[in-house]
């Protein structure tokens, strides 16, 4: 807030009103509805409903499909986060070292940010398609009995590969801008003290990038939880047998396609709590970042 401000009047309310109005109508009201419905049990025809306290939550958490989905979401998030960060970090460190042609490398590595997740999903899906996909054929020739429609591991492999591909460019951009903000003098001093580039990376560069990495970890987990919806919806759709069903995809299929309102609302509220935890995490790290 500024030291110098306009004096008290009704003017500021006029300026915030549009955003607040939209938030109340399209964010807070639906969220409140979701919380309210999560305590209700509707009959099969949606005519009457009854207040059942936490029964929907119990039913959700004790359900095998939900547990399977939660397990997959965790493994999926960890793998996507790890691989997309690792690949992006390697590329960013090397791109930062290049003297000639670095800008064309950068451009070529960042443009994929603009590809929408479902578009990436369909492209990847076609690459692995049994009729046209050469990757499908190649993997089978190599002796991997690959079939994403039947095998849970193969399906997870496809979804994870596409999700990593889609996320590398964002991480690359952030890592590169983190690397470029390290003062030149620090890097020069490090070069004098330590000749091995690997050792220099692990002792100097990587610790200096820690705030960026923490921040990106939160961003990537959020991505894996939520934004991969489009990838899953154009590849496996949670098949085979729910093996690649993320929690968000399950909320969508249960609530929107399956019309289980109470159950899907309870799942939504559990997701809200997860977002809350992630956001608190993120802001603690950001605060620390400021202190550096």
């Amino acid at each position, binding site marked *: 807030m500024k030291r110098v401000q*306009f004096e*008290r009047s009704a003017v500021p309310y006029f300026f915030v009103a549009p*955003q*607040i109005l939209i938030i109340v109508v399209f964010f807070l009201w639906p969220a409140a509805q979701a919380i309210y419905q999560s305590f209700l049990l509707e009959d099969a025809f949606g005519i009457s409903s009854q207040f059942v306290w936490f029964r929907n939550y119990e039913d959700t958490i004790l359900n095998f499909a939900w547990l399977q989905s939660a397990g997959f979401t965790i493994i999926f998030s960890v793998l996507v986060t790890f691989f997309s960060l690792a690949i992006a970090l390697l590329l960013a460190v090397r791109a930062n070292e290049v003297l000639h042609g670095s800008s064309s490398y950068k451009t070529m590595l960042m443009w994929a940010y603009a590809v929408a997740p479902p578009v990436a999903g369909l492209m990847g899906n076609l690459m692995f398609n049994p009729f046209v996909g050469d990757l499908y054929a190649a993997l089978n020739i190599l002796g991997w009995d690959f079939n994403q429609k039947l095998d849970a591991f193969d399906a997870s492999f496809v979804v994870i590969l596409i999700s990593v591909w889609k996320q590398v460019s964002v991480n690359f951009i952030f890592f590169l*801008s983190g690397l470029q903000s390290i003062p030149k003098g620090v890097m020069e001093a490090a070069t004098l003290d330590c000749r091995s580039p690997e050792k220099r990376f692990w002792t100097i560069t990587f610790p200096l990038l820690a705030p960026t990495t923490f921040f990106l970890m939160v961003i990537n987990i959020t991505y894996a939880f939520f934004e991969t919806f489009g990838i899953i919806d154009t590849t496996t759709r949670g098949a085979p047998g729910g093996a690649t069903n993320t929690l968000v995809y399950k909320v969508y299929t249960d609530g*929107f396609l399956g019309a289980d309102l109470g159950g899907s609302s309870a799942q939504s509220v559990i997701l809200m709590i997860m977002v809350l935890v992630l956001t608190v995490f993120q802001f603690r790290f*950001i605060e620390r970042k400021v202190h550096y």
Partner: protein
Amino acid sequence: MSNSFWRTLSTHAILICGMIFMSAPVYIAFMSSTHAPETLFNEGLQYWFGGHFFETYNEVLFVEGGVMKKVTASRMLVNSMILGLGFAIGKVVISMSAAYAIVYFRFRLAVPLFWVIFMTLLLPLEVRIVPSYEVVAGLGLLNTHTGLIVPLIASATGTFFFRQFFKSVPEELLEAARLDNAGPLRFLIDILVPLSKTMIAAILIIMFVVGWNQYLWPLIMTTEETSYTIVIGIKQIYQVLSEGGELPQFQKAFALTILATLPPVLVVLVFQNWFVKGLVESEK
């Protein structure tokens, strides 16, 4: 000397591998889209130009029934353009004006309202899918541009972005403006907006891409073909492909992925510096 030579060599090798990894899917998708369905079906993916470029893209873009029963890809591109631009402009206007109020005015509800805006970070669409749909349906906004755009533009990222920027604007400007008797609206339009030009450009670029790529929201609130965006078209063609039938039209699916990718990628490439600035600054 030799050590650094190998380092340079490995650096270029790694970066070239990275480039291939990132570009290959789109390259292959484009090349495959220029072939006949029979070629794709018999030989698999294609790695060089085929002779069916005009045929495929003409059918997808302009012929009714080419990709979907009623709607053509060009109509879907127009819908996507409206969504991308509407989302970007709406977001800039609404978040700039909210940030202006929060930074430049003293008013009683400033802090609570700031927290209301902050709350949107905790409530992504994915956790309130069904009730959001019900609200939009209740207001009769299904299949409309308003219903598509307005619920998406209120999230906090843009507001935080402008708030951060306004805080860095020198205090003297407001003092000077007040000495000249400039009112709030005057100050905003004559001083703050011109100062924020680069910031506005950066956020417009990034938000256009984000808006263009929206998936879940258009998916649940557009039920008529004529309101589909190109990204929703992707889902529809996927459905057609997975249902089977006659000879699968893979070249059209590939063409659609290229059409959906091209506009946002062009925006990112042309405005690269602004894009990076917008991305790095708005996510922080």
